[in-house]
């Protein structure tokens, strides 16, 4: 084993160094957590539309009324369900399609490859706001799918298609670098065994890039989970398709805001994503991202 995956092997035996690192990181973490402390403390209070002064970092009482209020919103469960479905389908589809693309752009030679990849990169640099209107028009015109007379407007499929499309370029860019770094020698052995590109992709690249793909899935996940703008325009008028960010925005009043509701709802929306992150980072994001656990 040439690669350091297990820190137990690491030779920083010096206790003092460990204590120093711990102290430093703990202090940094506390400073980093201030905004969260404010959110948590505030979610247990009841306000007359104005946040308290002096600011509270720790709750003075544990009043779950705000959480109850949010959970009792008649469409909270619908929103949660929609967010979970949209996000998970999008992540799986987007990551799979992007991995395929990244393989094509990293391991197969074809004329115009760099140019096409350049176009992909350029789209990353164009602001996305203005895309929404043409995207919408395209979705409206996709009427060949049975049962959708108005095209894909207001439908989950439409939203997922847009989400997937907007993430492909970035993910391809990210994954291409990793796929490139998987040693050629490995794929050659597959070719010798009579396998083609698909075998290489499924048998070598995908398994070896698990950490990279896992990392990227997390990035993708959180982006879709909190996406507001596109969802609002596409499915905002369809109450059955409401998502958590849309519901959250409604708690922001027209003239005044009940902060405890907003913060309670945000924290609730954060829980699934934290759990997913904890699970993912243990299972997937271990080991080498750039080289992978490969003997050279």
């Amino acid at each position: 084993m040439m690669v350091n995956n297990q820190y137990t092997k690491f030779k920083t035996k010096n206790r003092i160094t460990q204590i120093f690192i711990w102290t430093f990181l703990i202090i940094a973490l506390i400073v980093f957590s201030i905004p969260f402390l404010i959110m948590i403390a505030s979610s247990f209070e009841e306000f007359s539309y104005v946040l308290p002064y002096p600011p509270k970092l720790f709750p003075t009482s544990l009043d779950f009324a705000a959480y109850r209020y949010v959970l009792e919103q008649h469409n909270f469960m619908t929103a949660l369900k929609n967010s979970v479905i949209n996000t998970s389908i999008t992540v799986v589809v987007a990551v799979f399609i992007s991995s395929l693309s990244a393989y094509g752009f990293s391991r197969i030679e074809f004329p115009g490859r760099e140019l096409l990849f350049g176009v992909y990169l350029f789209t990353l640099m164009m602001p996305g706001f203005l895309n929404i209107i043409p995207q919408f028009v395209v979705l409206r015109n996709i009427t060949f799918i049975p049962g959708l007379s108005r095209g894909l407007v207001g439908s989950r499929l439409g939203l997922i298609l847009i989400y997937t499309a907007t993430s492909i370029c970035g993910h391809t860019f990210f994954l291409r670098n990793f796929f490139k770094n998987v040693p050629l020698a490995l794929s050659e052995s597959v070719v010798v065994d009579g396998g083609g590109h698909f075998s290489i992709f499924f048998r070598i690249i995908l398994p070896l890039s698990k950490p990279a793909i896992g990392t990227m899935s997390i990035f993708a996940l959180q982006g879709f989970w909190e996406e507001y703008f596109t969802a609002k325009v596409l499915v905002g008028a369809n109450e059955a398709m409401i998502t958590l960010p849309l519901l959250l925005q409604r708690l922001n009043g027209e003239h005044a805001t009940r902060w405890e509701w907003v913060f309670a709802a945000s924290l609730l929306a954060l829980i699934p994503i934290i759990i997913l992150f904890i699970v993912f980072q243990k299972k997937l994001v271990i080991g080498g991202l750039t080289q992978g656990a490969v003997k050279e």
Partner: protein
Amino acid sequence: MKKSLTLLLFMILGLFTMVACTDTTTVPEDITLTFWHTYGDSEEAVLTDTVLPLWAAAHPNITINAVRQDGSQYHEMVVMSFGTGNGPDVARIDISNTASYAEQGGLVALNTFDDFDTVSALYLDGPLSTSLYKGSYYGLPLDTNCKAAVVNMNLLESELGLTEIPATMEEFITAATGRGTFSINVSGVGDWDLYPYFWLFGGSLTNDEFTQATGYLNSAASIASINKLKELNALDIFTIRDIDGTADAWAGIQDTYVMFFEGPWYGFSEDIVAATIPTYNGRSASVVGGENISVFSTSEHPEAAYEFAKFMTSEAVQLAMLTVGQLPILKSLVTSDAVLANPKWSVYMKQLESAQARIPSPNNDEIKTIWSNAMTEIFLNGADVTATLTAAATAMDAELD
């Protein structure tokens, strides 16, 4: 590995088709109208519990799909719907945006309907005029409001030594002079915030036809008005939150400010009450707000949408919405008991008599920007009042027709 992936792919495909098939909602026989609004919780409750059942009883074949939008990005959503064609049939829109939507071609001119003249005769002139653009009416007034004074009676007595709300600004200023802490607060320098003060102290924006700002915005009276505000600021009487960095009015009225101006949505209490804005030089002033209800050009059922718009302005609906603070726009209701008997609504309806509209223009957003930029220059950067107002007047002229 390969097998499980194919399986996964099929599952995803299956999900896609499932999702696609569950989306059919339209029923051909009956009409469904989409209605966008930005009502808050209490208004929405009245809408769904009282108003819409009334409609359903009278029009069983026309279903209303009421969609609540967030107030903050509503204007942007409306604009976007113009581009996507996925807008509402009928919507509650801010009076100040009506002209610009009309200019874009997004709204239906309602005076083309036969009964418009009869219907419009029932509305108060002020609110009705806000939907007028180039000779046509692009909406019916739905609700109206304005700013009135919000006064903390306890502080009025303890800090200013007054037991009653003064009738004139002169009295208020005399009482507040020397207190050492700001007694009046306004949030920012935007039109909705600062116009009432600007007008109260004698300023004017344009001529009566809203076609020229030069000679009005930079008139001696307007310059004097701004200078008065600066003077009051220097005397520690009047503060602009965004300029001075002082506490927000909603918080500050509890323990610091004696008075600020706000719409009828403020949560009044026993000690914090509504009053008409004290007069200055014998005259009160305020700014008109409110919403119109308009039919969108993209609607496939403009007649039905117009029918719904009329319904929303009917006496029964207006009275129902008044219970949650939506002030009525019908002439017949101004002197009704429902208004006069209520200590809050009566104040606001009275204040409306001296309230002025903002410039009705499709370039409303530009005009707003010119105003607030000029005010920021004056109050924050200490720019010369006369020169800044003159430049702003010239810029405003270019935006007026």
